[in-house]
């Protein structure tokens, strides 16, 4: 088995063995604490530019499912390809087993030209990222050389967004999904509820589009890079059409409203994040994947904090006091993750 190593910007190295594609790759190194759902996580566009560390040590157990019709929205993936730069695990499974599996994790990554390293002490690596903060890193296979590269300097949302508007579903009501890197399950969540979706590029001027509500999607990178989206949302806030922001979308909504965002030390990535609804004793377990957060102190007058993270107190959602504008920092669509906060879709749809 060829050797491979992860080199971090601070000079530390984590040696292991190569799997997937034998190519070197650079990116921002982040960790996710979910115990299942690698096919969904790896295809989540929010991971664009990132090398993903999975803290759960056994990965690939149930293989990777196939997808029937590549012309439509993939059923088993969150976008049409693997989005991460590379994968770091303790163990990758060759002897996978599941009725839905079509290939091994390694073969799937090979096809997508994505490198992976196994045999790494992922707990050690995670602790490092936790204490030093998210860091740039690179996967180096054998003796190749490659430079570090900071993906956050690029407009990542633009890279993953659709280029032309696409329609889904045939419901009476329509929601515009501003695609900054939207996960398929957000679109499915509307379509399954009988709502049509008009998916538009991140910088598309949707203001004149006929629709009942606007969803600003999740996506990768720094929300401040999405200047066009922020400007469009700011205009939309002047009206009364319902707006829901999810993850990056919530941050864009905050920026549009006049609040500020900042980079978290190492972000929230996992399927077990407790979020408390302000003023209640309701606590929801949520799926999360974000490296930036809204600075609650900077929320303008008519906005309130909606949810907070019960672990570290950071903002997990915002809500307008009178208009149907909301933002959820977590992923109500799960995929992978719990469905505790799915009610947010129902609530949003009721305002349409």
């Amino acid at each position, binding site marked *: 088995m060829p050797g491979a190593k992860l080199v971090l910007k601070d000079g530390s190295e984590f040696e292991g063995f190569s799997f997937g594609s034998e190519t070197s790759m650079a990116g921002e190194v982040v960790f996710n604490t979910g115990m299942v759902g690698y096919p969904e996580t790896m295809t989540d566009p929010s991971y664009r530019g990132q090398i993903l560390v999975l803290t759960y040590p056994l990965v690939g157990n*149930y293989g990777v499912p196939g997808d029937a019709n590549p012309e439509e929205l993939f059923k088993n993936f969150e976008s049409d390809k693997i989005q991460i730069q590379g994968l770091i695990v303790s163990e990758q499974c060759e002897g996978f087993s599941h009725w839905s599996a079509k290939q091994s994790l390694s073969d799937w990554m090979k096809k997508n030209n994505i490198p992976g390293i196994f045999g790494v002490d992922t707990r050690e690596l995670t602790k490092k990222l936790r204490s030093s903060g998210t860091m740039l890193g690179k996967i180096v296979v054998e003796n190749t050389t490659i430079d570090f590269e900071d993906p956050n300097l690029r407009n990542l949302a633009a890279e993953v967004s659709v280029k032309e508007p696409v329609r889904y579903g045939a419901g009476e009501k329509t929601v515009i999904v501003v695609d900054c890197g939207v996960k398929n399950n957000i679109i499915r969540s509307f379509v399954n509820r009988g709502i049509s979706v008009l998916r538009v590029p991140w910088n598309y001027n949707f203001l004149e589009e006929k629709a009942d509500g606007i969803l600003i999607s999740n996506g990768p990178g720094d929300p401040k890079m999405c200047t066009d989206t922020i400007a469009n949302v700011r205009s939309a806030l002047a009206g009364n059409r319902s707006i829901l922001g999810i993850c990056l979308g919530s941050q864009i909504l905050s920026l549009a409203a006049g609040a500020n965002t900042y980079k978290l030390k190492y972000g929230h990535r996992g399927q077990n994040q407790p979020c408390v609804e302000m003023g209640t004793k309701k606590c929801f377990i949520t799926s999360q994947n974000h490296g930036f957060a809204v600075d609650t102190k900077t929320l303008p007058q008519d906005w309130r904090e909606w949810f907070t993270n019960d672990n570290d107190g950071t903002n997990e959602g915002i809500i307008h006091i009178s208009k149907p504008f909301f933002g959820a920092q977590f992923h109500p669509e799960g995929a992978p993750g719990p469905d505790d906060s799915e009610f947010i879709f129902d609530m949003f749809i009721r305002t349409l």
Partner: protein
Amino acid sequence: MIRNIKPKKILILGSGALQIGQAGEFDYSGSQAIKALKEDGIFTVLVNPNIATIQTSDHLADKVYFLPLNIFFVEQVIAKEKPDGILLGFGGQTALNVGVQLYEKGILEKYNVKVLGTQVEVIKDTEDRQLFSNRVAEVGLKVARSVTAGTVQEALDAADKIGYPVMCRVAYALGGLGSGIVQNKAELEEKTNRAFAFTNQVLIEECLYGWKEVEYEIVRDVHDNCITICSMENFDPMGIHTGDSIVVAPVQTLTAKENFNLRAIGIKLIRHLGIIGECNIQYALDPNSGDYRIIEVNARLSRSSALASKATGYPLAFVATKLALGYALNEVENIITKETSACFEPALDYITLKFPRWDLQKFEHVNKVLGTEMKSVGEVMAIGRSFEEVLQKAIRMLDVGMNGLVGNDIDFAELDKEITQPTDKRIFAIVQAIKSGYSIEKVHELSKVDNWFLHKLKNIIDLESKLKNYNLETLPIEVLRPAKQAGFSDKQIAGVIGSVAEAVRAKRKSLGVLPVVKQIDTLAAEYPAKTNYLYLTYNGRENDIVRSTEKQVIVLGSGPYRIGSSVEFDWCCVNSLMSLQKAGYKTIMINCNPETVSTDYDVSDQLYFEELSLEKILDIYEFQQPLGVVVSMGGQTPNNLALKLHNAGVKILGTTPEQIDNAESRHKFSQILDSLEIDQPEWKELTDIDSAKEFAQRVGYPVLVRPSYVLSGAAMSISYSEDDLELFLKKAVDLNKEYPVVISKFITKAREIEMDAVANNGELFCYAISEHLENAGVHSGDATLVFPPQKTYLETTRRLKVIAKEVAKALQITGPFNMQLIAKDNDIKVIECNLRASRSFPFVSKVLKINFIDIATRLMMGESVPKLSRSSFDLDYVGVKASQFSFTRLKGSDPVTRVEMSSTGEVACLGDNLNEAFLKSVISTGFNVEPKSVLLSIGSLDKKTAFLEEAKILQTMGVKIYATTGTGAFLKENNIEAEVLEWNLENGQPNVMSHLSDKKIDLVIGIPSNTEKAGLSNGYLARRKAIDQNISLITNLEFARRYVKAISKFKMSDLKIKSWDEYL
């Protein structure tokens, strides 16, 4: 809300004696509950006759009642204590059943006792199969198709409708008692006939054999917050009881969609049912489509919740208690991280594996095939970062002589049968199958075990073949490290490459192949945690902790609960840890049993959930560099390691390992006794059958035969004749090649005595003498123990003390020790001496109210302990410890007590006199003490004669007496009226079997003669029938006599309701 009217006094029901299906896990949950209540300033009252538990310690509940857990006694405790709340979910099925009865009889209402947490109506919804099916259907979820039956005919009709094979489940059953897959009408008829002896309801349902079996632990608060703490997947699919299955946490072969779908279903159902606190939901999952069925919900803490708690680090029982008090989930602190909230779902960055421990070989005639009824007596849990690692660790943790998955001396003749009709050895049969060329698919077809698991087994097998290419010198790190990462032990590797463990250890250390210490922190390192919960792994490179510079002491635990080593040793370990902490030491606990309190997060400063093996202890010792290791608290497992550890340079605290060996080695100990002029039964150590016969001939039969290192009477037996001896030796000699067999003269009609004591530098410090109710011949673990002794002569006790003093001095004992002795008239002989705490330490400590373990620990650490002023002569009350058997669960086993131990648990109660304490104890183990009819069948003439007085008492009491032919004739001669029953149907009516079937008999006193041959004798069949019909059974003469005397003096209502502290 509820907290504003928070109860001031709460009654907690424990689970009583350990038995199959209900073991130490409820000591863990009850102890946690009490701690959680105390933190809120609530006065706690506990009813639990299991005296060896931690929860019945003086530092926990404010009031402890060692009383039977049935509504008769619990009602009286309620009337006396007037609690305003009751917790039903912490004492297993026993507490739940008592709770339901208290509610239905209106007792809770009458005394205005509020049920905290899940309400009784909800419990009933989960317990009654039909109600449950209805409730599930209300929210559109799927259960296995099922029909409730109240009679045998209804069951047969239901099965016809669903189609064979069907699953037959029994309502309100501990661990699925009486449940099973039924292939045809005849089987169903037989099974339901038996089931209706216990219950008035059975469930016939669609058979899901071969589906994946998965479980989730769910908590919910009064604010409707509902989360899942842990998911678990069974290695053994549907068809084998989850208690008998190998289980991994978290789930391994489920996709995110399947996993979160099952999570959502569980939460939906739990909300609909209205459970508050903790519960467990079990599913069957179709391995070919992801379709599911809900199997059941346990609305209480369970074996699985204890496992989940230890697997995740999430203190389920503690949190459940807070939720029952009305706290919101996010108002409870995550005690592990101390930084984050309890409202989160643990993320694991490791894998855990539970392996059940069976002791089936200890029973005669027992059916060893695993099915839907639980048979295991304990379990271990291994933690690691690969499946291969945890599996091999767990197999060694079982302490059954296996080196891991491979490298064992085991061979199966009928592989296919072993795999399709699984026994406790199936996994080894699978290994043999793969080695002999079976494909993964073929093994899957036979076993239904998921291919993922089978691939993993194959990885281990492949590594073994790779290792075979090398010897110690040539073994490269590229092979050695993967082997260690796959959980191979040094000894196991040595076995494969033809070396010894020490050499492999030295080699791997020189190559830098060392395990690392990792923490369990519930959050996969996402937040810093102040956790003390640790494991070793080779799948990592960094230690999570740095060595402490403080004074540290390691205490070795007892490993899995098994027959002969159970919760009593956990009590000793926990008490030792507490004493060490009080004395200012940092404590390190090593244990691998998820059912224990010693593995709780708040009991030691550092907990290593690890193997109790030389290799792992040395690894930990070398890393931690403690002052020393305590080996005398965890029973025989750590005791056996003492000398090996010592030879490897480990400092053993207390009595020196050489002296431990002097006591363990029969030769050395015998010489010491000879030099002290202390008597012992004549014995000889032998290695061949002929010299054994010769010896037995010389001293005269009966003789006692046993291997030199004894654990719970393993392979110990009395031989009454040369035939007996020959038959038995073939079994025993094969059992343990390392040590020869010892044969000794068996002294009949002698009294057996236990001496529990503590010494300091060879001086006896304190001691407690208890006597067996039964004559010698019943294993001390099965015997009924009386303390202080009521029958032993003063002269004898005086002499016992002198012997203890001399032995303590000769062996230079510092710490706990236990001696077993035989007294006949005033003649005393020493049977054995263990330089460690014994099974009866918690019993005598609690009855005497002097903590022997605390004293022993302090003395071992060189502290001065003031002389005691209290002795057993000061007691105005009596404690009686009685054994709990699990024969009902072990189909076919002969329910008779012998020198080989077969009880799974024990209780002890206090009384103003022997009879009162005795009755409370036997009621606690399930005896009917107000029989209206009794069947007498007493073996030999001397026993018949000895029982005559008691037979007369029974007659005077108006008890209807049935007797078997011989006993009946004897009674008639002595003017006692008895209705004579023929043995069986062939001999005509009226007969024993039909009377037992019809439950015309409340109690069987069936005392076998010494000459009763093994095999399917009439006596065996009747005993077995009684057990299967849930009829009280007595098989020992002295026990029977005491029982009759006691019931003639006391009715249930005469038994006093006094708490522990009221016995002064």
